[in-house]
């Protein structure tokens, strides 16, 4: 990978940052861009369109598991106890639905949170080399790994769109 370089552009100007992202995306670098932003705005999502997040699969699987856990817990334990209470059937659907509903939400959301950690690659033990504390305050940045021969054009796009600093490493 000796022919690759990393180009980092820093911005104070949000509109210029978004314009850079759009241009770089049009140039075919969309999948390789890493951006840093203190805020998520819809302009960023529009500039770098991406498919739906994989977190939804975690939510679906977690919810189904939770529901199943609720059904199995109530049905199996009631059958084992086998004691009629209040003249109701051993397997009483309405109360068991309540337990299953709560467990659907509980396990569904716990697994959703795990999905967020998984897809967001968190916890991150080490910060990205280009990360700067200003990126959690009021600055934005885009980092692109590209071939050395593309670096000049990428740098030009960043500068034209108002990057306050462009670094090639």
């Amino acid at each position, binding site marked *: 990978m000796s022919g690759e370089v990393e180009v980092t552009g820093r911005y*104070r*100007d*949000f*509109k*210029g940052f978004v314009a850079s992202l759009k241009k770089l995306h049009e140039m075919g670098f969309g999948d390789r*861009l*890493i*951006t*840093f932003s*203190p*805020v*998520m705005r819809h302009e*960023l*999502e529009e500039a770098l369109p*991406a498919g*739906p*997040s*994989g*977190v*939804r699969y975690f*939510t679906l699987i977690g919810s189904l598991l939770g529901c199943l856990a609720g059904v199995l*817990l*109530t049905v199996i*334990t*009631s059958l*084992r*106890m086998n004691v009629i*209470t*209040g003249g*109701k059937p051993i397997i009483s659907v309405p*109360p068991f639905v*309540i*337990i299953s*509903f*709560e*467990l659907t*939400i*509980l396990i*569904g*959301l*716990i697994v*959703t*949170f795990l999905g*967020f*950690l998984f*897809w*967001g*690659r*968190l*916890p*991150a*033990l*080490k*910060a*990205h080399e280009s*990360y700067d*504390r200003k*990126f*959690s*305050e009021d600055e934005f940045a885009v980092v692109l790994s590209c071939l050395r021969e593309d670096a000049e054009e990428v740098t030009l796009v960043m500068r034209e769109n108002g990057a306050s600093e462009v670094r090639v490493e």
Partner: protein
Amino acid sequence: MRTLERPGRSYFILLSACTLLALVGVFSWYHQIREGIGVAGLNNPVKWGVYITNFVFWVGIAHSGTLISAILFLFRVRWRNTVFRSAEMMTVIAVMTAGLFPLIHLGRPWFFYWLLPYPNQMQLWPNFQSPLIWDVFAVGTYFIVSSIFLFLGLVPDLAAVRDRVAGLRRRLYSLLSLGWMGTNRQWRHYRSAYGFFAAFATPLVVSVHSVVSWDFAMSIVPGWHSTIFAPYFVAGAIHSGLAMVITILIPMRKYMDLESYITTDHLENLAKLIVLTGLIVGYSYVSEFFVAWYSENPFEQAIFSYRVWGDYALLFWFMLIFNSLLPLLFLIKGMRRGTVSLMVISILINVGMYLERLVIIVSSLAHEYEPYAWGTYKPSIFEIGITVGSLGWFLMWFLILIKLLPAVSIAEVKEILPIPGREESS
């Protein structure tokens, strides 16, 4: 970030006062454990008193956090951005406080684990047909979900704090922020997860107070056995929760100099919501009486007559005035925008909502079917100590949390600020 600065003397005085109140509660509970549940004023027929009232009250207070955070998020209501964090903190602490009361009411709290389903040699399992077990699952789920929801929303803000502090605090916030850097990848999945949390928390919040209401409605006690209890309790919970948010936000924004973030417009919007919930609560009161009258059920009619004219009539009338009539003052613009009127009315609504739970629980048990089994209830000094202690406990944790965690969402407030562009820069 301003909320995390080193607090002044008045903060420590307030924190000490709240801790002292909490200690009064701890001492009272200790005394009850040592001497037995007999030190409480509970009796036959009134076996549920202020402990269960406190439980329902605090669960209710917890509801506004999810309302403001999740429901208003789903409706893309922008004014929520500055107030939802404090409401979420309030939710977590209120559920934590509420969860203590069934344990206090148990008398032998060390056997609390009997409520949980766990394999044991006697092969005993909880009775899943009992509303009290539904409570364990509903309140437990609500506590865990609202805690994770609060933490999820905090992650970007904790990273912002991490980048601005040094030393031990930096290490602590580094750990808590999970190494968040605000990359496009992280934001994308964060937004997705946040949306799912909001979407799932909304039916959860409705289910939790519905389950709490079924603790009563599933019984055949007159005044409790009603089909309107679930929506009635949910509306009441949101009503009291919103009032508590206003009660807490007004001193917080003044003390922490947050008036430019939590503006009068925000408080006014909360007051408008209170008018809505107050009308729903008032309608529920009228419905209860109408159903009792129209059913021609003598026991139902007797209990509602007892509420109006009986031993707890004074509490009933205060409840009616504070919860249904006073909020209508917010129809006047000046009342919605005046800090003093907001504060006074919101405190009175909280008092009214506490009385509502007390009236529902105590009056129905005191005046059931058989006249020879009627009785009355008066809380003992230890029950009052625990109740006052729970308020101190709630405020103590709130004061601690607002100094440890950003009380106003940094990332979401930035979302509604004008974007820095070349026009502004030039």
